[in-house]
């Protein structure tokens, strides 16, 4: 798959490295050149510095031929804007946003934005480990 990752956060790096090593075509966008450098030499995908919801930057990243976009910056609102731009301006179906605030995640889920709520996942993991043997 051709996958665009917006945000070279820890989550972004982890995703990019995993998907890259699984043989996917990965492009990572981040505003900060130094964050991109943290991906290291073993990463074989494309790196683009810029605003990940700016249409020009997304075009440069090859959004037209991308199969999926994952918005995983540390900012909920940036991720929500990015996924909506990918969906509404470029007609992409598989776009996911990482969201800390569970209420915002739920709200935008209702507006057909697919979200992964980090807080809910962590809380579930804790509860599972607490009661599972």
């Amino acid at each position: 798959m051709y996958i665009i990752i917006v945000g070279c956060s820890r989550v972004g790096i982890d995703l990019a490295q995993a998907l890259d090593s699984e043989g996917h075509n990965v492009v990572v966008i981040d505003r900060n050149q130094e964050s991109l450098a943290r991906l290291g030499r073993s990463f074989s995908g494309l790196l683009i510095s810029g605003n990940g919801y700016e249409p020009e930057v997304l075009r440069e990243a090859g959004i037209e031929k991308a199969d999926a976009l994952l918005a995983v910056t540390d900012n909920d609102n940036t991720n929500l804007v990015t996924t909506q731009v990918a969906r509404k301006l470029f007609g992409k179906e598989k776009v996911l946003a990482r969201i800390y605030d569970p209420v915002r995640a739920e709200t935008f889920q209702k507006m057909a934005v697919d979200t992964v709520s980090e807080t809910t996942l962590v809380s579930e993991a804790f509860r599972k480990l607490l009661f599972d043997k």
Partner: protein
Amino acid sequence: MYVIIIGGGNVGYYLAHRLVRDNHTVALVDKDRATCDRIGQELDILVINGDGCELHTLDAAGIERADVLAAVTGSDEDNLIVCQLAKELFRVDRTVARVNDSRNEHIFNELGVDVPIDSTGILARVIEEEVSLSDIVNLVTFRKGKLALVRVDLPDNSSAVGKQVSEIPLPKESVLVALIRGSEVFIPHGNTILKSQDEIIALTRLGDENSILKVFLPDL
């Protein structure tokens, strides 16, 4: 009207000040406590310290009964998301947002903000008008860019000089709105006679500016 303002910077503060003066009811939300304390002391409005993107903050600001929400923070992402929450969850009639980066204006339109205001673009156009040497100046655009108010300075050798307004073959969907002559402003009528150096203000469809120019400028 009940107006909620998100963002207590210069724009938010000044907006609140003006709305209160015009007898509107205003609630202002800002993330910074010190900013909220200062505004609370200076203006007689409801001030909420919190993140406007969180529902309990919007609730506390009385969003259920708000007629308008104006998002004027320095972050385009925040302004966009607040407007979407106001629209989708609370059915606020009118959302107005400040666009900080002109390149994002299109995105505000696409994501459903009723009135995006490109502050940088407006400022740049005003400055351009002051320094411009071009024959026609675009003053304002309305209706998502379909209509424009333009200004043309009538040169001495224009064929329109000395003619009545009714004799001028204006493009079909354009009207002369005002004439500025020295320090005076006229509303032109059919029998108003144009003089050289008049500043002509016209309302036109965007894209028809060149037809207007052709009418007032001498043949090239």
